[in-house]
């Protein structure tokens, strides 16, 4: 998910939370936890045990300081600044001088890639494929997900090669029409 979408989504959840919506606030914290886990995990690879502690510390800090977030301000930089502050605080307490030379402040690194998103994306793709007819689904799975050649896929699924190609093409087109408002799946077919 692009950073701007994450910003829009999390900001909406946070603002709803600040207005008193418990469910939105919980959802916001859950998503933040996933992002933080990935962000801190990459930077604390020496101490995997500390990652979850620091995730919790960050969540608690964001909760306790949530009155400093105001609606006129972008949300993800607020989160990033707190996570970075808590990370540096921990590293400093450990006396890790080398770690401070790491580029800790790449803007938005916290939201660029999270394990959570990768899992989400995979689950989404598999879920979407379920909605296709069997022949199209099998063709796409073999060629696009498992990386087989068209010939191998044809042998495996008992279809002709051209049937496999047509199946992939129609399947992706159908997916694009159904889910892809603006996301260009056909381009890759």
């Amino acid at each position, binding site marked *: 998910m692009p950073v701007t979408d994450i910003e829009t989504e999390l900001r909406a959840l946070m603002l709803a939370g600040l207005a008193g919506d*418990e469910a*939105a606030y*919980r959802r916001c*914290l859950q998503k933040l936890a996933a992002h933080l886990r990935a962000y801190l995990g990459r930077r604390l690879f020496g101490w995997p045990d500390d990652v979850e502690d620091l995730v919790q510390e960050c969540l608690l800090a964001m909760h306790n300081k949530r009155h400093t977030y105001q609606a006129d301000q972008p949300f993800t930089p607020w989160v990033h*600044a*707190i996570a970075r502050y808590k990370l540096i*605080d921990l590293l400093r307490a450990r006396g890790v001088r080398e770690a401070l030379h790491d580029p800790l402040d790449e803007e938005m690194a916290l939201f660029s890639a999270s394990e959570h998103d990768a899992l989400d994306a995979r689950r989404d793709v598999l879920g979407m494929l379920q909605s296709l007819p069997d022949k199209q689904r099998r063709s796409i799975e073999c060629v696009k997900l498992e990386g087989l050649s068209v010939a191998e896929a044809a042998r495996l699924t008992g279809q002709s090669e051209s049937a496999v190609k047509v199946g992939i093409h129609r399947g992706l087109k159908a997916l694009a029409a159904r889910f892809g408002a603006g996301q260009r799946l056909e381009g890759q077919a």
Partner: protein
Amino acid sequence: MKTDDLIKLLATQPAAERQAPAGAALARAVGLGLLGGLLIMLAGYGTNPALPQLLGTPMFWFKLGMPVVVAFSAARLAARLARPGMGPGRAGWGIALAVALVWIAAVAQWQATPAPERAALLWGQTWLSCPFSIGLIGLPVLVGSLRALRELAPTRLRLAGAAAGALAGGAGAAVYALHCPEFGAPFLAVWYVLGMALPVAAGAWLGPRVLRW
């Protein structure tokens, strides 16, 4: 505790109790500190007996205005630094501008004055006590603004502490200007600026020590 349990616990109280903007908390602290500074000035120094006449001179307003600009810029800077993810922005430029202006005025007045009279413009009668008086009168504002910052969430502690110091220095110098008998722009450029720099240094030193959260 597992993270999911922590999240469930936190999510039971979504709304922030204090929605007051960072600026408001800071303004309250500064207001109280300013009152404290005024009391110190009135009790320890007293206003300048010639104050009513001074109100008509440009130098008095310059002496009052320069620290006020510093204090306002520093307050905006501190309010920004108190919120995570907000950089210092351009708020610090006001401080630099005020100091630059007073130096320009000082050089101009220095050049326009015959050499024998220049020393009086620079040293005045009170050069030794002036910086410390400004620091002392600014002290309540320094304490108040650091306390207010603790309630907020500065992530650059040294810079935030220095901003609180500049706020205190500006406020202290503005209050001290009601007492100060000096009239030279070079005096302002050196001793007032030095007086305001004292709380800045104190704030920068204190920041990482007292603002951690």
